[in-house]
């Protein structure tokens, strides 16, 4: 079993009507690996995330997570298996507090059932306070625990990003998908975010699959990088390979600049 990849995707293809968004996509992620996915706007990076996490079904292909085919499962089932994600535009719940955000992601771990919810049984109190404790720890890990009783909209942007990360971590994922975790951040927030991602990876030992626009982030964090253009992987390799790959440079910078 140990040799089996955590996430294995075989020839995943997606058509939106006649538009081919993703074509013959293959991926293997081992436990504990950090993998990057880069590509110009509209290349289909987020579509790949959405396909894997079950937001829409792939037209064709297989997605094996922990050896199990997860194509056709609902997003909440896939995430409960241990595949957590963040969103490009965060998708926070604007009326909820920071702590509630993180606690909410422990929904699948709740065992007290509806009776417990209606009657406030001791079992419920126990589970709720346990999940509050875990949530608080995660908020500390990403460095926003001082905001835990604030409503999310009161937080600065960088802190909201981190809450979103803590929320995804509360699922206790085996693999974490990060969709542009540093989008819209200033250099200082960027540094902090990179530190946090590395810390999460080191302390919680989870695999990370990362979409990024900023080359620096991907180059520094990832061991392996895929480059996606028009739904097809045009290059795959370690950061140095990618940096020097003429096809990647062409896709990013245009032909003339190739040296």
């Amino acid at each position, binding site marked *: 079993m140990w040799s089996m990849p955590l996430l294995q995707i075989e020839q995943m293809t997606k058509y939106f009507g006649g538009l081919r968004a993703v074509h013959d996509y293959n991926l293997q992620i081992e436990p504990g690996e950090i993998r990057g996915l880069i590509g110009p706007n509209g290349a289909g990076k987020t579509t790949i995330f959405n396909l894997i*996490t079950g*937001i829409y079904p792939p037209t064709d292909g297989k997605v094996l997570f922990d050896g199990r085919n997860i194509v056709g499962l*609902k*997003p*909440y089932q896939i*995430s*409960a298996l241990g595949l*957590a*994600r963040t*969103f490009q535009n965060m*998708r*926070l*719940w*604007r*009326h*909820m507090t920071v*702590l*509630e955000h993180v*606690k*909410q*992601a*422990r*929904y*699948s771990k*709740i065992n*007290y059932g*509806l009776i*417990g*919810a*209606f*009657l*406030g049984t001791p079992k*419920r*109190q126990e589970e*709720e*306070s346990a*999940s*509050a404790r875990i949530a608080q720890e995660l908020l500390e890990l990403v460095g926003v625990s001082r905001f*835990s*009783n604030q409503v999310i909209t009161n937080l600065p942007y960088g802190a909201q990003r981190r809450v979103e990360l803590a*929320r*995804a971590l*509360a*699922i206790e994922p085996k693999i974490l998908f990060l969709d542009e975790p540093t989008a819209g951040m200033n250099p200082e927030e960027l540094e902090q975010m990179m530190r946090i991602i590395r810390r999460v990876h080191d302390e919680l030992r989870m695999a990370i699959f990362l979409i990024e626009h900023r080359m620096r982030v991907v180059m520094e964090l990832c061991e392996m990088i895929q480059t996606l253009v028009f739904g097809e992987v045009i290059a795959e390799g370690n950061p140095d390979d990618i940096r020097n790959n003429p096809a990647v440079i062409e896709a990013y910078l245009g032909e003339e600049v190739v040296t």
Partner: protein
Amino acid sequence: MAVTTGIFTNNRSRISKFITRVWEPFIPVPLLGWLFGAVLAVAIEQLFGLPLARILGLSRIPALFGVLVVLNDPTNLLLLLGVLLYDILVYILPISVAARLTIAPANWIASRLFNIQGWISAIIHILLIYGILHIWSDVSDYRLLIVRLTLIAIIFTLSLNVVNGYMGEFSCSHPGFIALGAYTASIFTVGLFINDNILGPALLPASLAALMFPIGLILGGIVAALGAILIAVPSFKTRGDYLAIISLAFTFIIKSLFENLEFVGGPRGLGNQPNLANLPTVFFWTVLSIWIINNFVRSTLGKALNAVRDDEIAANAMTVNTRRTKFVAFLFAAFWAGLAGGLFAHVIRYVNPSTFGLQMLAEVLAMVYFGGLNSVQGSIVGAVSINLLSEALRPLEIFKWIVIPLLLIVIMVFRPTGLISFKEFDFFKIIKPKRTSQKDVEYAPTAD
């Protein structure tokens, strides 16, 4: 701030300053102190109300703080003066004096009770509230009716708030659920315990009626929840306006269903319900519903509703089974609406299909949106104030339906989500003593 201090802001700050100055001495009064004051007030009314009213030139104890009397004859200034004096002498003065004078003992008792066991203190507070309502409503049958209908309106409002506030969908099906519950409970009690010319002779001795009444109510709730499945299956596949449209249709379908069912009296309605929904019964169910609904919306399973409302895709990605969440909440809301419908039928002791129409829908929606979305105390405030207001403004006749909507518009302009919205209801926090040693005051974040 310093740039513009127009006459408007000046006045407003003067008013708010005045309010703070008046309110200041009452800040350390715990809920228990207010309840002592209220007990005193209703006791005074019970003992001296009638002679006092006579002295002040009123024919009897004013039922709703005299609003009805004054509105019936708005030009009679003597009457207005009498009513004002009555309210001050019977309510405002005793309550404020008792609350102010009992600050020390009330805080002491409250903290003692609280330290023994939180829920014992809660039960004592609830019993005190019941006692106050009981004595107050003892004065006239009219008051008794109003109190019971208001308590039932709290259940209506709170259960609708679960769907329209907590879940953020727009449901119009509450009159339908209420009708289902009202008719089911009525058929249960009238059919089993009453010799009725529509439903036939009694099958069981009438002495069992009070004992079996909860079964009838719960049956009503279950039937309403079954009705809710009919709406939930087609409309929860997607979000948006579908639920509003389907649920509105449902209300009309249920109404015309009962209009055409001859065995429950058709459009003539069904009467003869036994007098089972007395004040203790209604109060018990109201407290139970508030407790259970509040428990639910504060749990992670209930908070999932807020997650679904604020971002369903994110909720789904964070392991929340959104479809199940919406289903459960909708059925749950329908259950309480149906149960309250059963109580309603036994308070009015007559049900008629036309009761459960658009007007009832408008009233319940008004209570939810006036009081505040996503909050239990908002629903209580909304239900009580709209209900009392619509009773008190009865003498205005048709103008009542101008005043109340105007009030709603004002609320929508200044507080678009209602008076008290997006607040958590924590009864233990409310009954806590207001003045204690420093370490108790320190706010510790609780688990839920």
